């Protein structure tokens, strides 16, 4: 079960930390870094259904407006 309730004592620090992680990186390196982070988190969570739930939420959140990028398939 994905916990989406506020769970971070210092959300500003978390946000800044994530952004700082990408400092000086090329877009390609950034992409790899994010992928590596997701893989580490996925292993930490250790539960495919939680991951699926998170993906569902993330896709819902970032879904580009209709009619521009519909070629990426449907959410799981």
């Amino acid at each position, binding site marked *: 079960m994905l916990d989406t309730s506020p769970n971070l004592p210092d959300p500003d620090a978390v946000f800044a930390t994530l952004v700082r992680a990408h400092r000086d990186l090329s877009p*390609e390196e950034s*992409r*790899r*870094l*994010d*992928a*590596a982070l*997701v*893989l*580490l988190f996925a*292993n930490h969570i250790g539960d495919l259904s939680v991951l699926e739930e998170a993906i569902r939420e993330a896709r819902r959140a970032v879904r580009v407006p209709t009619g521009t990028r519909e070629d990426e398939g449907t959410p799981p």
Partner: protein
Amino acid sequence: MTFAREMTLWLGSREVRIIHIGRAHTAGDTVVWLPKERVLFAGDTVEFGATPYCGDAHFRDWPATLAAIRALGPEALVPGRGRALTTGSDSRLAIEGTEAFVTRLFALVRAYAERGASLKETYDAAMRCAAARFRAVGHLRALHAVQRLARLRRGDRDRPPARLDGRARPRAVARAGRRDHSEDRRGARLKTGRLRGQERRKRNAMPTTYTNPRFPFRRPPELDGKGGSARVVIVGAGLVGLTLALDLARHGIASVVVDDDDTVSFGSRAICFAKRSLEIYDRLGLGHKLLEKGITWKVGKVFFGSSLAYAFDLLPEDGHRMPAFVNLQQYYLEEWLVEACAETGLVDLRWKSRVVSVDPRADGVRLGVETPEGAYVLEAEWLAACDGARSTVREALGLPFVGQVFRDRFLIADVVLKSDVPFPTERWFWFDPPFHPGQSVLLHKQPDGVWRIDFQLGWEADPEEEKRPERVVPRIRAMLGPNVAFELEWVSVYTFRCRRLERFRHGRIFFVGNSAHQVSPFGARGGNGGIQDADNLAWKLAAVLKGTASDALLDSYDAERIPAADENILHSTRATDFITPKTEAARAYRDAVLLLAREHAFARRMVNSGRLSLPHTYAASPLSTPDSEAWEGGPAPGAPCVDAPLEGGFLLNRLGNEPVLLRFGGGACPVLPGVRLVTVPAEGTAAERYAAPSGAAYLVRPDQHVAARFQTPTTDRIAAALSRLWGAGDAAAAREAA
């Protein structure tokens, strides 16, 4: 002179009947029948060696008309096109050939029309079907496109294989009666001498380390009016067809194997034989040969860029007769299979025999077979289509494949290394290596000092261009370094598909191996999957032929091998997606996994350069009896038996190919007819691997998979499981138990 339906003329004492026997080629088809001589002038109702003109045809009526013609029972027949047929069997072949053409073509066109397909799609499909089934029929006048394909195909046979590949070869044309080990694998035989600075190219050179044997055509009895039927016919004497024939023979079942070629496979094909396949061949009596000749390996290494990402050991455990893998060129194994089949005296191997028509019936299959000395009809009680990815039998039945094509190309280069070998006997896989940036490379060692290298090329690569030694040799040199001398002995470029038939059993016809399913080469699941198909089918077919089991047992071939094929397709698709990422994001994840893998075990488990073939567990099989006791390990019902060392040998060698009750420890034990008792010690490795308490027993199937297991075996429980093993289902099992 006119007549209504039939009229008789007497030419002296010779009766000549002129019959409007029914509509076929036109509305007014008429045949001339000499009842005493049993000679039929068929007009255009029957054609031989030519496609009928169908422009004015009555497709719905034509089969009935042919049935009426067949009922006349002609011993000689003059068709509208083609030579005069002077025997009853040739006459029947012509009638059946015409019927097959008309009915299949009509069924196909109707199916496409119902689906709302365009005229072009329908036409193309009809051409494919016609070309596949009727390629051998010579003049295809009415259908010009088919004629063209046939001409190209005829040309193929005499053309050097180096030019057989590529665009000149019509994809749609299947090789009738011939197994086809790969698809879109464009082979080029060539050899370059090991030359300093310059490369020499020889077309048509055989690989230097192996010469294909040529098997003689032997005139079959059917051509002299004898024989004509077989209990089992196997189409395709390739790896899978020969394995099935040998397995059937080991069960005492004779078979006829037809193949349009006269030799074993050519060039680099299947090379990795997995443990389960080795155990199957051990049961068939060839295990020692594979061990002796094959290259045994169990360590794999994966590199990313220039550094090692991780290494794995496939079989860290001792006490197995067979290793995790053996690498061996497919042609050696096929050669041994041919020898072993011949030794049984039960396998009638017919080389240079091409299946030209397939007519499925309720009680068997009627085949038309063409040979250098004439054509004949062969009636099979059961037919196994082991004729590869471009299966003629499958085309003949018009069965579609469902699946995915991968838009990528790979180059196979087999090289003989002439100097010190820079690699150990391991499987090495590179992602994005410095010598082949952006792509992947796989390296395997084979016997005879041959190394197989697979280079990923990408979809845009030109296969013709990439096969040229001028392109290949520098790639290999970049990989091996400047000081390693080598000789190139095989080059081909391939693409692949992951797909399968919806069902593998169609009445009396079974699809086995690549004719039923195809996978990418990553994971060694193609050849190994086909071998396991044969292993699964042989004992069932043998049991039905001997009357031990009913026809229902054969349905379990689908129930067991379709999930196995799906498992293979899933793994090989995932491996392919990992190796050839389709999007930027996929590549980022793939690269991140490889980078994390250096440090983190969890990421190593995600690295997928091919999940190497493991035996399928028939988990949901109708033949398995689920556990009713708690087991802490051991092979579950449906799983293959695990090997273990015993005094003086190995456990699997004690099992054989009939049902076995594998008993752990002594004491009284129920004995059932048709089940052989094998007792092993209650203490030791075997008992540990089977998690078996003293007195426990496993009921083992003829293919050495577990049917059931009991911690407290009783006669009733074993009898119920045995009945289920033979396909009688759960109800019978329940009845037996009660």
